[in-house]
């Protein structure tokens, strides 16, 4: 595909017409994977391939998004997602602004809508939003005209995490059709689980979720996934085990008795891996609670792709920023 060479040399933008032949992903907002088509997902993942090649170079910087401003607005602490977006933007040549709740005027009582309008007024072309409340990106989309990427909204969706998971899986299995993926843990509060479910099903994989029954949300099977209570039964024929982070605060709310018992029933360890097929892929969105949902031994197993996921996160986010800026500012092409 000829146009990826252009991307790699930084000249692509000059060659792409708005609504032209090459770029089809033309959404202003990436709010979730629920409303993306399989074709759109594939296009993002394909675009991420040359992006990964770029970030493996010694000199990574491209001029592609020169003159663009990407603002990250994070209402929750985050290390990898925020830095991943920032690096993706910088390596594409954009300027970045980071707004975090601890230092912003949100502390002075400014509400979400005002904060968002202010960031747009400061000149942001993209707002990357992380928020503790489901639906906050939808409110943002109604409030501002700039491009928006959901970097996680409460227990709802985390589309870029799922995209990087899909990308990582495709490096192992070029076609996801028929692949058996087990997602383990707190499905109820996990935005990673939900975005993964949407993405995996759209690309033809089968998905099984397992976790304490008190952490399985009602009606989840209506999404098209299988619910299995027993982790060991769930992994028996799995191609992939995606392990979710468990949060201690759920224990305080009486949803499970203790981290100790959680580790015993749902912790992924050597013994669980011995039940799974030899070539099973081990994933975790991070950060890991080693010794709880996954042992150090399992996390560092040769079959684990946990650190690759982090690298791929930057590639996928570069691809998204690139695709979403495809039309150029005010429809004009940049040179």
């Amino acid at each position, binding site marked *: 595909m000829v146009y990826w060479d252009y991307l790699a040399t930084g000249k692509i933008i000059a060659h792409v017409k708005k609504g032209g032949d090459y770029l089809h992903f033309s959404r202003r907002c990436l709010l979730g994977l*629920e409303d993306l088509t399989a074709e759109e997902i594939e296009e993002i993942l394909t675009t991420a391939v040359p992006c990964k090649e770029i970030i493996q170079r010694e000199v990574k910087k491209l001029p592609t998004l020169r003159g663009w401003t990407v603002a990250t607005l994070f209402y929750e602490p985050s290390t990898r997602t925020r830095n991943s977006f920032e690096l993706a933007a910088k390596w594409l040549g954009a300027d970045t602004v980071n707004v975090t709740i601890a230092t912003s005027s949100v502390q002075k009582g400014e*509400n*979400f*809508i005002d904060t968002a309008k202010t960031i747009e007024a400061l000149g942001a072309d993209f707002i990357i939003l992380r*928020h*503790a*409340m*489901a*639906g*906050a990106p*939808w*409110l943002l989309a109604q409030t501002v005209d700039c491009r928006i990427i959901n970097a996680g*909204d*409460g*227990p*709802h*969706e985390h589309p870029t995490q799922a995209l990087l998971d899909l990308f990582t899986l495709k490096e192992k299995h070029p076609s996801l059709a028929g692949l058996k993926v087990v997602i383990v843990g707190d499905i*109820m509060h996990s*935005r990673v689980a*939900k975005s993964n479910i949407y993405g995996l099903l759209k690309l033809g994989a089968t998905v099984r979720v397992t976790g304490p029954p008190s952490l399985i*949300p*009602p*009606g*989840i099977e*209506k*999404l098209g996934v299988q619910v299995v209570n027993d982790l060991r039964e769930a992994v028996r024929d799995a191609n992939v085990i995606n392990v979710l982070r468990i949060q201690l605060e759920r224990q305080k709310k009486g949803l499970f008795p203790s981290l100790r018992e959680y580790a015993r029933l749902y912790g992924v360890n050597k013994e669980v891996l011995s039940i799974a097929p030899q070539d099973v892929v081990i994933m975790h969105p991070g950060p890991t609670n080693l010794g709880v949902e996954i042992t150090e031994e399992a996390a560092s197993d040769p079959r684990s792709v946990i650190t690759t996921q982090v690298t791929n996160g930057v590639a996928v986010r570069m691809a998204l920023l690139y695709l979403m800026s495809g039309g150029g500012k005010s429809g004009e092409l940049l040179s």
Partner: protein
Amino acid sequence: MNYCLKNGRLIDPAAGRDCSVDLLVADGKISRVGPSLAGDATAAGYEIIDASPYLVLPGLVDLHVHLREPGEEEKETIASGTRAAVRGGFTSVVAMPNTKPPADNGSVLTYVRAKAAEAKAARVYPVGNITKGGKGQELAELGDLVANGAVAFSDDGRPVMNAELARNAFKYGQLFAKPFLLHCEDENLSAGGQMHEGFTSTRLGLKGYPSLAEEVMVARDLLLAEETGARIHIQHLSSKRSVELVREAKKRGVKVTAEATPHHLILTDGDVAGYHTATKVNPPLRTKKDREALREGLLNGTIDLIATDHAPHTREEKNQEFGKAPFGMTGLETALGLILTEFYHTGLLSLAKIVDLLSLSPARLLGIPGGTLAEGSPADLVLVALDREWEVKEEEFLSKSTNSPFVGWKLKGKAVATMVGGEWVYKEI
């Protein structure tokens, strides 16, 4: 001024009447009802109003309204809330006590009644708290509340979580012959809940508020009422199982009545998709199955009346993250249009039944005047253009708040003139 409403179609289920006749209003009362009264009335100097294009109904009575005054006048005042009421055809509203300060003592009730008298729109019947501050810890002075005009007791917005305290309230309440209006919610089961717990809450990533949170409390309150003999009224039923519990209790002879709101009768949890905060309400909008059970309950008499749970909130409060927005929606100005559109024009309910649900039944439940057009009763009535098509528009609300999920809806049937005590308090004809 005395009036003759000439040749309107009177619907008065209390008298079993549905016919086109004349109605005379003199000295604030309905003085005569019958055919061909206009001639005499003209001679006596009555103002003649051609009511032939309209229905003439007893003024509507809303058993469940939040007027927000005192304390939250930015959302609604007694003046704005009662103007909204009469625009919607309501001539009497029952004011819930969760104001700031709450109506847990006689002086707040006296204030509310004085403000209502000043407003000169709908009649306001205040409710007093069951517990001090509505906090569910100690009994309020129910005797003081009754002495100052409370028509019922309620901690609306919250349940009395402590079963022992609720039981004592029901026993002590036997002194006063006033009903308890109950908001049934187990606050442990509903804690943090944003919408109905089900597939849609899973999809949207919003914490679920299960039907069970209501049903557990309905069941408990029915048992407590059965034991103590208290007269209870279950507010805003939302789930199928709750309807069944009330039906079974009625069969056993428990002194229970129940209400449903227009929004629970019309919308479902699916309407929350898109995170529309206007649909955030307590109890939450539930499934189609629940909605069908509520409709069934209206038809078979399990549900006695329709009340709006008019709950105004400011734009600032509603225009934020779904999880932060407060629960509640306005209802006074849309209820009649919605019920006529969704239930009369679809053939589900007769006009007589609708008048019963929105006027006669709530008036009887509280023993307040109204609910009928019988000679001698106060001239509280509403003229309705049954086939008038109109759109719910934000800028036309007389309520201070516009948090209605029905904005933009096209409705058929509208109150066009409302009279309270023989005075026109709303008129668009």
